[in-house]
């Protein structure tokens, strides 16, 4: 593994942790919807770093959380996280980053904004909820349909986050094109 890759993986794991520790964002269109910026970190890692590095960043984050660092939103962390009903989302972040990064790499020749939006929506919503709902159904003893119903409230918030990620990717592509590693790997 190259030094630079190692640092980038650590960087996006740290950004993910930071997003959870920041005071809540005032998202412009979603007053009142319970949103933590954190799941954006998984989409960002994938869109910015590409599939493998993005997924590794999430693996590193979960590893540090398991070691006992309270790095998830609201100061949660430690081994307890892996026994809660939201464990599906937690492991889902790895898949989110991988799928988002993979799509970003596959759409390398497309303009940044639509490519990043597709990557963030497919990765950050479709894949994340597939994992999250499965986890909730398994740990919570619910049917898949009920688990889906319980998750629906959060989808609008994640849609906003996906748009934000695409906007960020586009701005970064303009300001510092080489920072969008998923495109020049």
């Amino acid at each position, binding site marked *: 593994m190259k*030094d630079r890759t190692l640092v*980038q993986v*650590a960087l996006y794991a740290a950004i993910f942790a930071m997003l959870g520790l920041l005071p809540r964002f005032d998202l412009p269109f979603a007053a009142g919807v319970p949103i933590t910026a954190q799941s954006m970190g998984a989409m960002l890692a994938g869109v910015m770093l590409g599939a493998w590095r993005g997924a590794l960043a999430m693996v590193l984050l979960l590893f540090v959380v398991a070691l006992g660092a309270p790095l998830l939103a609201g100061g949660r962390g430690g081994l307890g*996280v892996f026994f809660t009903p939201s464990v599906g989302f937690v492991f889902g972040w790895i898949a989110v980053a991988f799928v988002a990064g993979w799509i970003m790499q596959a759409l390398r020749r497309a303009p940044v904004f639509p490519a990043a939006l597709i990557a963030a929506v497919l990765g950050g919503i479709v894949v994340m909820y597939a994992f999250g709902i499965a986890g909730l159904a398994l740990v919570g003893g619910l049917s898949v349909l009920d688990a889906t119903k319980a998750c629906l409230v959060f989808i609008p918030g994640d849609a906003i986050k996906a748009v934000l990620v695409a906007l960020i990717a586009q701005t970064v592509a303009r300001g510092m094109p080489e920072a969008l590693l998923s495109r020049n790997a």
Partner: protein
Amino acid sequence: MISLYLAQRTWLHAVPAGWKLLALALISLALAPLDSLPVMSGLLVAVLALYVSLGKAALAQIALLRPLWPLFLILLAFHWWNGDVLAGLVVLARILAMVLLANAVTMTTRMDAMMDAVEPLLRPLGWFGVAPRAVALAVAMMIRLIPLLFALWEGLNESWRARTGKRGGWRLLAPFCIQTVRLSHHTAEALAARGGAPRHNRR
């Protein structure tokens, strides 16, 4: 940062990290096929007794479960709606007991002891060209980066406030990402100048 680790030593601190992790894994495996209310509530009582034996500071840590209550209520509501409150209670008791038990391990184990305990499990990574020492470096680097990132964010926020009088919020994310990438380039160069990330497992 709020620490999950209990500074005050208890008897569980003295148990080696590897044993605690093994016990946690075995208990969670053994419980997987069980779903009777007496067993689960018995387990919950046993876990609470464990917390009592660890002292007041440990009991105070139960408050960490607070963010989970809404989720528990939703779970129970769904089970009640399906006409099976009993199944809901079993599920809830299982989740509570396992989360508390896992937290007890985290509370009584230092992060470096945990790292040492899992290092043998990381050895197979060597076959893919990732030295376990490099994993330890990545962990340390990530933890060190968090306060740096906060400082960077605060700097951007202050500049934004100086220009507009308002908080930057999500608008800072794009410039933040650009600056962090710059930071990562410098860090990588500094790392390379010091001989690079460990490639073998020699200390």
